[in-house]
């Protein structure tokens, strides 16, 4: 395993690096997924481009109108510790806080969590519900793409080889919106999710939705707006269980994941009722 380590200072320089190395380069954020992949030989880059020295990407910005920008170098613990975010987006900070251990969360980033495109990524369900968009940049321009279109499959994103994710934009939510997160794992801090899910309740737009992770290659959002005035946990659980396509693997069987998804949805509805 031999590669060149680059630590660009500006987003422009990172764009140039990716323009010339493309497929042969890997973007490095916290490294908590990438270092494991490098060690196992699953990733064999010639160039590793670190985003952490790019000042602009370290930004976690709350706009006055409620919009939010999470730069590519913002760590999971910065999200967990942000009191405003906790109050506004409990589903996001809850998902972030459920990731790994404190030491891992000091390095791991939100953008890395999303870009790794693992079905069990714990920040993804809430971000999917909040209508988050990923900002992709290259030497030649930038574009925004919905989170659910960014994650195209297991470990696959819509990013071109010359692009990097500069950050995540979360739009302003309806007045009084709340989100919750719930996860099923064997041992806290030592397991990826067997199933995870988030719930959004937006009284202004009468929006009620559940997102389910770990049970499909891409995040699944189940619309429950029709039951906004009369939330029915059993019906919601049934619909969520019908929309997923879980696999059986070393961690759990498909049947178990399906049952756990129903259980998580019922728990989220318990949280909604308070």
């Amino acid at each position: 395993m031999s590669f060149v380590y680059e630590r660009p200072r500006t987003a422009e320089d990172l764009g140039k690096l990716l323009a010339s190395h493309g497929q042969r380069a890997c973007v490095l954020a916290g490294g908590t997924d990438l270092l494991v992949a490098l060690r196992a030989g699953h990733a064999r880059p010639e160039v590793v481009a670190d985003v952490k020295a790019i000042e602009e990407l370290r930004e976690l910005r709350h706009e006055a109108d409620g919009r939010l920008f999470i730069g590519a170098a913002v760590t999971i613990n910065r999200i967990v510790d942000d009191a405003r975010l906790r109050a506004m987006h409990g589903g996001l900070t809850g998902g972030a806080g459920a990731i790994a251990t404190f030491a891992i969360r000091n390095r791991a980033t939100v953008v890395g969590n999303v870009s790794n495109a693992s079905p069990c990524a714990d920040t993804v369900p809430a971000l999917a519900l909040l209508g988050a968009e990923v900002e992709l940049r290259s030497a030649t321009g930038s574009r925004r793409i919905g989170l659910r279109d960014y994650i195209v499959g297991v470990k696959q994103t819509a990013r071109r080889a010359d692009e990097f994710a500069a950050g995540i934009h979360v739009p302003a939510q309806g007045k009084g919106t709340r989100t919750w997160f719930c996860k099923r794992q064997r041992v806290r801090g030592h397991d990826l999710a067997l199933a995870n899910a988030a719930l959004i309740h937006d009284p202004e737009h009468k929006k009620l939705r559940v997102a389910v992770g770990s049970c499909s290659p891409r995040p699944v959002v189940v619309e429950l707006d029709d039951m906004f005035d009369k939330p029915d946990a059993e019906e919601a659980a049934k619909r969520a269980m019908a929309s997923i396509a879980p696999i059986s693997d070393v961690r759990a069987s498909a049947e178990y994941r399906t049952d756990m998804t129903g259980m998580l949805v019922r728990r989220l509805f318990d949280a909604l009722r308070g």
Partner: protein
Amino acid sequence: MEYDVRITVNGERYQARVPASLTLLRMLREVLHLTGTKEGCSIGECGACSVILDGKLVNACMVLAVECDGSVVRTVEGEGAMDKLSDLQQAFVDNHALQCGFCTPGMLMAARELLERKPDPTDDDIIEAMAGQICRCTGYETAIEAVRRVARKGQAGGGK
């Protein structure tokens, strides 16, 4: 490619030339010969390699040495000396918080970082902070009690 890395470990400055793929853990152990920090899993799961990097607890196996150029690192070697243990080390001994001792350097760094961040931690804080430190011997209760005792005494601060 090889890179020059300048790094301060426990107050001492070091400079080393390392390949880009070398982890901070390997640099500490194999290049700087600071073998107090242990290698258990190398994939972020066991906590044996926990060190304090620029004030933050990290798994040294999850960080490249080249990323640490200009950084300040604290390892278990900075806790205390054989003839003068730190408060945490003494509390671990007094509370039988170690048997084989393999997890202890990581446990001590996690506990140290916690006490500096939260001098008066609740039991939940202690459990959360120590959750990444896997121990095959003790069953954790004794380590948690050791941290609790140091916190109650309110005299957190390294021996050195």
